[in-house]
C-alpha cells in the first residue's frame, strides 16, 4: 500500500463521509472465534471525539465519492466541483485492520457514492465486508450502507457480513425529496429496508430452531434524516420517524442538522447556522417515544407542530398537562415517574429501588442525584414542604428558566433572533 496515495484518498473520502451521524458500535453479538481479531459483544466504545463533540468509534469512510446522482443537499453530488477518489477493496481492509489493532476504532462504517449502478456499488461494499470476515477473521463491528435500489440478493449477502445496515431517507417528506433529489424516489430507499427487515425477522425465527443459523445484521438497521433543509416542521419529522420505527423495526433514526454546503437557492445558504438546538430537541422526543412510554402524538400533534426550543419536550408536555401532577414519588408507578420533568430513567429506577427501604424525602432525592430544579414543581414526597401555590404553566416555566442556565443559551439567542 503506497502511503502517500492512501493518505490522500483517506483525506478526501473521510471528509465526505463525516455527515453521516451514526457512529453506534453497540448492539451486536459477534464474539471472537478461533483466536481471530476483534469482538463486538460488549457495549459500544467511543475511542475519541471530534472537536464538535461527536463520538469517533468507527472508521467512517466512503468507498468512493464519484456519484451519478445530483442531490442538492449532498457534498458528493455530481455537479459539485470537488476532488474525487476511490479506494480499492484491499486498501479499506488494510486500514480497518491496522486501525483496529491499535485500538483506534471499533470497526468500519462504509458508505459510498453511487457509481455506474446501485448493484455495482453495493457489490463492492459487500466485497469489503466479506473479505474482512472470511479472510481476516475480523469480528469487529461493520456498518454498511444499503445503496438505494440494490437488489435483494445483494442485501441478503450484505447482512451476512455486516452488523448493521442502514439506508438514509435524508428528506422527511416525499415532496421535499422530489424538490432536492429529483433523480431519487422513495421506493428505492424502501426496497432494501423491507428486504433487511424481513431477513432479520426470518433469522430470528430460524435461530430459535437451529442455533447455527448464520447471523444476519445482528445490530439491526437504522436511517437518517436531514433537519432544516427542506422546510418540514417537527410534527412531520417525528411522524415520519415514528412510521419507520413501527413499520421497519428500525433500531435508530438519526437526525442531522443541515450543514450548509452549497449555494443552491433551494437550500439554506452557506453561513447560516446549523440547527443544533432543534436537532437536540428532536432526539429528546425520539427518546421519550422509545424509552419513556410516550406516544408521539402526546408531544407533537396538529395543535403543537413544533417543539419549544427553550424547554425540553417532556417539560413542555407536563406544562400542557398540569392536571396529571403532582406525582407522589413514594407511590407512583414507573410510567408516571418517567413523566416527571427532570427525571431520567436511571433516576426512576433509583427511586423505585430506594423506596423499598424507606419513604423518600427531598434530602434523599437530592442525594440520589435527582435534578430538582425542574422536578420539584411536579412531585410530592415524604415531606410537608412542597409547592402549594397554584402556579400557572407560564409561571412554572418562568421559574424554571430563571433558575437555570442552559448550556445552549448562546445558540438559543442566535436562533431566536433569526425569527424575532
Amino acid at each position, binding site marked *: 500500500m503506497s502511503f502517500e496515495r492512501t493518505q490522500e484518498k483517506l483525506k478526501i473520502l473521510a471528509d465526505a463521509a463525516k455527515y453521516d451521524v451514526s457512529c453506534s458500535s453497540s448492539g451486536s453479538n459477534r464474539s471472537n472465534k478461533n483466536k481471530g481479531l476483534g469482538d463486538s459483544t460488549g457495549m459500544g466504545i467511543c475511542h475519541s471525539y471530534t472537536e464538535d463533540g461527536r463520538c*469517533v468509534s468507527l472508521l467512517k469512510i466512503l468507498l468512493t465519492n464519484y456519484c451519478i446522482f445530483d442531490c442538492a443537499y449532498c457534498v458528493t453530488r455530481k455537479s459539485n466541483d470537488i476532488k474525487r477518489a476511490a479506494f480499492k477493496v484491499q486498501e479499506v481492509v488494510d486500514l480497518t485492520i*491496522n486501525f483496529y489493532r491499535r485500538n*483506534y476504532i471499533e470497526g468500519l462504517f462504509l458508505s459510498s457514492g453511487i457509481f455506474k449502478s446501485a448493484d455495482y456499488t453495493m457489490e463492492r461494499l459487500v466485497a469489503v465486508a466479506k473479505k474482512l470476515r472470511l479472510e481476516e477473521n475480523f469480528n469487529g463491528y461493520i456498518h454498511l450502507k444499503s445503496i438505494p435500489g440494490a437488489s435483494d440478493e445483494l442485501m441478503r449477502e450484505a447482512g451476512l457480513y455486516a452488523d448493521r445496515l442502514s439506508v438514509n431517507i435524508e428528506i422527511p417528506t416525499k415532496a421535499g425529496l422530489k424538490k432536492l433529489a429529483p433523480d431519487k424516489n422513495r421506493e428505492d430507499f424502501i426496497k432494501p429496508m423491507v428486504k433487511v427487515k424481513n431477513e432479520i425477522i426470518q433469522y430470528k425465527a430460524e435461530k430459535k430452531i437451529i442455533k447455527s443459523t448464520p447471523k444476519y445484521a445482528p445490530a439491526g438497521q437504522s436511517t437518517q434524516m436531514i433537519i432544516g433543509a427542506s422546510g418540514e416542521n417537527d410534527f412531520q419529522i417525528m411522524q415520519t420517524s415514528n412510521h419507520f420505527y413501527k413499520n421497519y423495526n428500525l433500531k435508530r433514526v438519526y437526525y442531522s442538522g443541515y450543514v450548509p454546503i452549497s449555494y443552491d437557492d433551494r437550500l439554506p445558504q452557506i453561513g447560516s447556522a446549523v440547527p443544533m438546538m432543534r436537532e437536540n430537541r428532536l432526539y429528546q422526543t425520539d427518546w421519550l417515544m422509545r424509552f419513556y412510554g410516550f406516544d408521539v402524538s402526546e408531544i407533537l400533534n396538529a395543535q403543537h407542530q413544533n417543539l419549544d426550543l427553550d424547554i425540553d419536550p417532556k417539560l413542555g408536555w407536563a406544562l400542557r398537562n398540569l392536571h396529571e401532577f403532582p406525582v407522589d414519588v413514594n407511590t407512583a408507578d414507573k410510567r408516571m415517574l418517567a413523566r416527571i420533568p427532570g427525571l431520567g430513567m436511571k433516576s426512576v429506577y433509583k427511586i423505585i429501588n430506594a423506596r423499598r427501604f424507606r419513604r423518600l424525602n427531598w434530602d434523599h432525592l437530592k442525594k440520589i442525584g435527582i435534578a430538582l430544579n425542574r422536578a420539584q414543581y411536579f412531585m410530592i414526597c415524604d415531606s410537608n414542604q412542597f409547592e402549594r401555590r397554584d402556579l400557572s404553566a407560564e409561571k412554572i416555566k418562568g421559574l424554571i428558566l430563571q433558575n437555570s442556565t442552559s448550556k445552549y443559551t448562546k445558540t438559543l439567542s442566535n436562533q431566536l433572533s433569526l425569527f424575532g
Partner: protein
Amino acid sequence: MQEKKLIYDGTFDGFLSAVFYVFEHKIKLASIENEFVAQNGLFSEDIIIITEEDKANRLWTGLKSKVSSQGSYQIYYAFLSEQLGVENILLDYIRYAFSSTLKVDKNYAHPSVLKIAQIAKMVGREKHRMEAFVRFRLTKDDVYFANIEPDFNVLPLISKHFKRRYADQKWMIYDISRHYGLYYDLNKVEIINMEFPKHFDFTKTDENLFKEQEFEFQKLWQDYFKSTNIESRKNMKLHIRHVPKRYWKYLSEKQPD
C-alpha cells in the same frame, strides 16, 4: 473505647482478611489502613493483618450472598479506587450488608451504600475510558505496546476485555504510575514489571523501538481525526468534557504534527 487500627498489605485479599478479623474479634471501633499510607496513631492500637486467602474467600462468598452481583462488583471497583479512607466506608457497607435481611446494595438512601456506588461509578468510568483511550504502537518485536496513567487502578478490570478482543496479537498495557503492566503472549495474560530508563519519554515514538509502518498509521489516524471535524459545529467545551485534557498526552490523534 479505643479505636483499633488494622494495617493490611494493600491487596484485596488483605483487605478482606482485615474485615474478617473485625468480625472474628467483634471489634466495634476499627479503622482499616493500607500499609503504604498508615501512620502510627497516638491513641490507637495497631494490628498488623496477615493476608489469608481462605479467610478472604470465606468472607467474599458470604458477602456475595448478601448483596446482588452488582453490589459485589461495586465493592471490588470501589476498593480499586485506592481512595484514602475507602476501606472504612467499605467496612461500614459490609457491616450493614451482613446485618440486614434484605439485599442492601440498592438502598441508595444509606450513606455508605450511596458513597460506594458513586466511587464504583467513577472507577467504572475510568475503566471504560481506558478501554477507549489505550493506543497501541507496534514495536520492533511485534508487540503492540500501550502505556496508560489512569486515575484508579483499573488494569485488573480491563484485562478480560483486551484478551478477548486482541486474541491474535501480542500486546502489553503498562501503567506508568503504578509500575506494572499486563502482557498477553497469545495464550495468557500475565502481570509484569519492567524497568524503563530514567526520563524515558512515553509520549515519543522512538524509531529504534517501533516499526517503520507505525509512523505511517499514526499519521493516517491523525489525518482521519482531523477530517472528521465539522467546523461549523465546533464545540470545544463538549470535546474536552468527553476527552479530558489529562488523557491527551498519550492519544496519538492529539500529538502535535
